[in-house]
């Protein structure tokens, strides 16, 4: 039934399997490593409400992380979705403006997070006088995750069959109504998976936040106060070498965050596939 394998095919088969095994091993190794180092250090005192130098609780940072995620998505979400709507539903393909927008979006997605951090610190923190604050951090991150939201929304919108649009127009609905009532709802799972992807990126970000939202391990009382997210908290715990064990425990919590986010996004993805 099958063609007999020649040398080349055999070789290709071997390298492919070898590569897959290397990847899987790396993965297992890293995850096992994090769990082994971290789990023994996960103590209840790490989840107390107040951060003190005795318990180095990560609870304030968890809360800050949630605040930063929400704020960032509030800023980047609408802008990203609206610009995707413009690109898909309004703009003429291949117009100058579209070309420039696509190019700048690509540029944004390629900029290293440290450059975002410097930019955020120069513009928001210093020039605009926000100081190290959660708000400055969220603005910086919003620009950073914008391309992700734009791209996934764009894909989701393009995937909506044209017959939906034609049907809606045919029934006499305006363009705006068609977009908000017909197209967006059927693209929701795709948009959501983009938003979840960005959440993952926000949670894991360190370099861009150190210079913008500060490293204070207290719950930020208002959005103009500084506060560290979980990843920044881990960086801080590591930097003076006093709390390395606790840093490992934070890594486990970060891992759990990522797992939750990924399963959420793949769940949404499946929903999208089912239609």
């Amino acid at each position, binding site marked *: 039934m099958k063609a007999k394998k020649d040398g080349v095919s055999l070789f290709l088969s071997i390298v492919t399997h070898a590569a897959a095994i290397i990847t899987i091993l790396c993965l297992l190794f890293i995850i096992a490593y994090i769990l082994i180092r971290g789990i023994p250090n996960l103590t209840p005192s790490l989840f107390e409400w107040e951060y003190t*130098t005795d318990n180095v609780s990560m609870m304030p940072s968890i809360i800050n992380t949630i605040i930063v995620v929400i704020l960032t998505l509030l800023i980047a979400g609408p802008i990203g979705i609206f610009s995707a709507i413009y690109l898909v539903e309004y703009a003429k393909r291949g117009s100058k403006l579209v070309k420039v927008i696509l190019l700048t979006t690509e540029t944004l997605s390629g900029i290293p997070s440290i450059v975002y951090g410097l930019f955020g610190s120069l513009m928001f923190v210093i020039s605009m006088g926000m100081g190290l604050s959660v708000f400055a951090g969220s603005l910086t991150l919003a620009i950073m995750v914008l391309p992700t939201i734009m791209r996934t929304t764009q894909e989701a919108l393009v995937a909506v069959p044209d017959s939906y649009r034609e049907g809606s127009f045919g029934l006499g609905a305006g363009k705006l109504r068609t977009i908000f009532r017909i197209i967006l709802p059927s693209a929701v799972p795709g948009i959501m998976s983009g938003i979840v992807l960005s959440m993952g990126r926000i949670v894991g970000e360190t370099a861009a936040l150190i210079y913008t939202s*500060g490293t204070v391990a207290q719950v930020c009382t208002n959005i103009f106060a500084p506060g560290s997210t979980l990843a920044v908290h881990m960086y801080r715990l590591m930097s003076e070498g006093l709390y390395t064990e606790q840093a490992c425990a934070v890594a486990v919590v970060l891992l759990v965050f990522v797992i939750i986010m990924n399963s959420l996004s793949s769940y949404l993805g499946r929903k999208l596939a089912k239609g």
Partner: protein
Amino acid sequence: MNKFLKGMLALGLSATALVGCSSGGDDAQSDEGTASGAITVVSREDGSGTRGAFTELMGIEEDGTDNTTSSAQITNSTSVMMTTVEGNSYAIGYISLGSLNDTVKAVTVDGVEATVENVESGEYTVSRPFLVCTTEDISELGQDFMNFIMSDEGQAIVEEEGYIPRETTGAFTSNGASGDLTVGGSSSVTPVMEKLAEAYEEINTGANVSVQQSDSTSGAENTISGVYEIGMCSRDLTEEEQSKGLTPTTIALDGIAVIVNKENAVDNLTTDQIKQIYTGEITDWADISE
């Protein structure tokens, strides 16, 4: 299915191989104490307070020129420094005395052990000041906190944390000011400052002190611009900073421990040897063991 089985088999095999590798590595490391081998020099980044003090005291810096060998590894974190030295039998580095633990070995310098007592008595000379800087328009609360830091109670905390206290101003009595106070700056000073703030808040319950960790430079700059009321510095203030109205107060001394791997047979280094290691004149441990 056959392919699947083969894949799993290969996976298992390579896993065993990997385990074998890593345990083999452990064997190699458990050699008896190293006495020879190329030295891995680890230093802090340019401008770090720890590095500044270290290079100056060891004579590595001459006439304002830092002669640290360009082949020295650089890190910006105490933790990375310690992990590097912990994992490399041939490494040498230096850290704040307060961060020292038993994963690495602190060598004696000119025969003197790096302890709080020896720094205090002046026998162990490798130390640097922890500063706080303030401006003239410090609030009553800020002044009260400063008084606390320099009091018996405050300096007792400094000593407890492994740093060297300064002369105290006697027992502390609060002036009763309340409100919010922001202290920020050097990451080296932050751990002890957090302890001080917690103790102070217990005495003066109306006060809320938040400690922000950034770095010496932004500590000073933000104090000038009024973002912080008290800035923390782990280096001396520059003339430019002082001319802008900052007054430094030394709240503690921090000893700098010279650390090597636990496997290392060397227990003592002279100032001269350390200087030669860091300037690249001595590159092998064999040249040290007398």
